């Protein structure tokens, strides 16, 4: 257990020094600030626009960080051969992989935390209270990012960063449209497409992690709206990490 945390702390430290993440974070922060002006041109919807754009920024920037870290962190370890001196120690390969993943989750939580604080600071300009209702949506963004990071780690366990990034982004986008695909399927007259579309949505649906509309428009959010997607996310993460470990454990590090 100790090895996971040592490797995770090292991964976190590495990400902390990554300039690409600093620049992307700055860009996302600028975009949230810009939402203040976007709110000004809306009709009495200032607060909703700022929150909606803010949450979207957290999600999009988070997905970028998850994919970028997921595909690069493991690859860099192999490319620079730093992994040689780690696996030569009494450390199992799955400890390296899960330690790296844990480190990425620590980075993602830090990033989301910082951006959430920033979003609350920006919303303080237009309303004087802290809107705690945003937190379930932010919690599910973290779960979704953890799923995306697990996808990235899975592809990185056998492929190059470019291909891994490409596959991961593709899978993420598919996950975002399966909800609509399911809706089309229900209305479709083609029985085969109907079965395919509804089953795909049942198995793989990243839209399940989106509570943005609910919290921004102050619709009721029940406990199961959070816990069910969270459990589904953990299920996906479990599958992806198991596949990653199976791929990684017998791979030759040339």
């Amino acid at each position, binding site marked *: 257990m100790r*090895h996971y945390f*040592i490797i995770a702390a090292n991964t976190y430290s590495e990400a902390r020094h990554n300039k690409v993440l600093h620049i992307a974070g700055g860009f996302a922060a600028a975009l949230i600030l810009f939402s203040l002006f976007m709110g000004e041109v809306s009709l009495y919807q200032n607060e909703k626009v700022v929150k909606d754009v803010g949450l979207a920024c957290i999600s999009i920037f988070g997905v970028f960080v998850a994919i970028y870290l997921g595909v690069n962190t493991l690859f860099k370890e192999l490319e620079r051969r*730093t992994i040689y001196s780690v696996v*030569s120690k009494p450390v199992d390969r799955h400890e390296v992989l899960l330690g790296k993943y844990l480190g990425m989750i620590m980075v993602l939580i830090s990033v989301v935390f910082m951006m959430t604080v920033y979003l609350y600071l920006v919303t303080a300009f237009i309303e004087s209270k802290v809107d705690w209702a945003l937190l379930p949506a932010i919690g599910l963004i973290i779960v979704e990012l953890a799923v995306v990071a697990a996808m990235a780690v899975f592809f990185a366990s056998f492929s190059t960063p470019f291909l891994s990034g490409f596959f991961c982004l593709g899978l993420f986008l598919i996950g975002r449209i399966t909800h609509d695909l399911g809706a089309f399927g229900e209305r479709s007259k083609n029985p085969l497409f109907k079965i395919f579309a509804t089953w795909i949505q049942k198995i793989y649906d990243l839209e399940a992690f989106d509570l943005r509309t609910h919290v921004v428009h102050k619709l009721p959010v029940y406990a199961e709206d959070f816990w069910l997607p969270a459990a589904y996310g953990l299920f996906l993460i479990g599958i992806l990490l198991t596949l990653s470990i199976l791929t990684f454990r017998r791979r030759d590090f040339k």
Partner: protein
Amino acid sequence: MIEVKNLSKDYRQHFWTPVRRVLDSVSFSVTQGEVFGFLGPNGSGKSTTIKILFEIVFATEGEAYLFGKPLGDKSSKARIGFLPENPYFYDYLTSRQFLMFHGQLLGLDRATLEKRIPEVLDLVGMRGTDSLYLRNFSKGMLQRIGLAQAIVHDPDLVILDEPMTGLDPVGRKEVRDLMVHLQDQGKTVFFSTHILSDVETVCDRVAILNKGKLLKIGSLDELISVDTKYVDMVWGSSNAKLQKYFKTLDAKLSISADSLYLKLAPHADESAKRFESRVSEVVQKGLSEGGTLHSLSPKKETLEDVFVKQVGNLESRV
């Protein structure tokens, strides 16, 4: 300590390219307390063998044991220090953080490491670099810090892949001294290299590898013949009689204005004793012909000769 039995490794660049055997039935063993040199040209399979020992790559055939246990055993790994070839380490860490990271992976607690880190930095000649970032290190400094992480837990066996790479002559000497120091403490050192002088200086036993095959293994005394390979003689006066006599000999003769250079080698079936008496005869005769002998130097076989002879036995290395 290390036991390798019929180890083979096949690589395939892509699924459409043919399989290439980079290691072919290699067997050897390393016993406790010895410094063992793993010698071979680039691409001979030295690093592949070492990578297999740590399961960085997996053997296609054969088996290997460390401390009598199969590869991958954690208790064995905890007793080994490893320096990879051309190491690149996390450049955002300082020396101290880097050694702390590796020490913790080895199961050492913080208090032990706080005490041990200055000691190993001192041992590898890096005292005072605790707070320097690895990104500011030269290649030689990285090699030394790599050595430090290999010995931070005071291992029983140290495996070094090309440890002299990137080091200046002083650095190389320091690494050789470190190996001797480790041996004096009862540790076993296994290192790969293609620098022959390093092997001759510190190794008890040597294995020569080429094209994935183990060509020769043994102590330096076993590998290098003690017999004289040839004798070099420089004669001071070049009178005609002396030149005429030397020309009758089955030897290489070079004549300059005021000296004669004679290279006398033993015949294929000539014993060492017979060759010595032949050299002595030539010297006496030369002196009696009025020559002045300036120097006589018998040349013994070197490890380089053995290496070139062995590696040269095979066709192209690639």
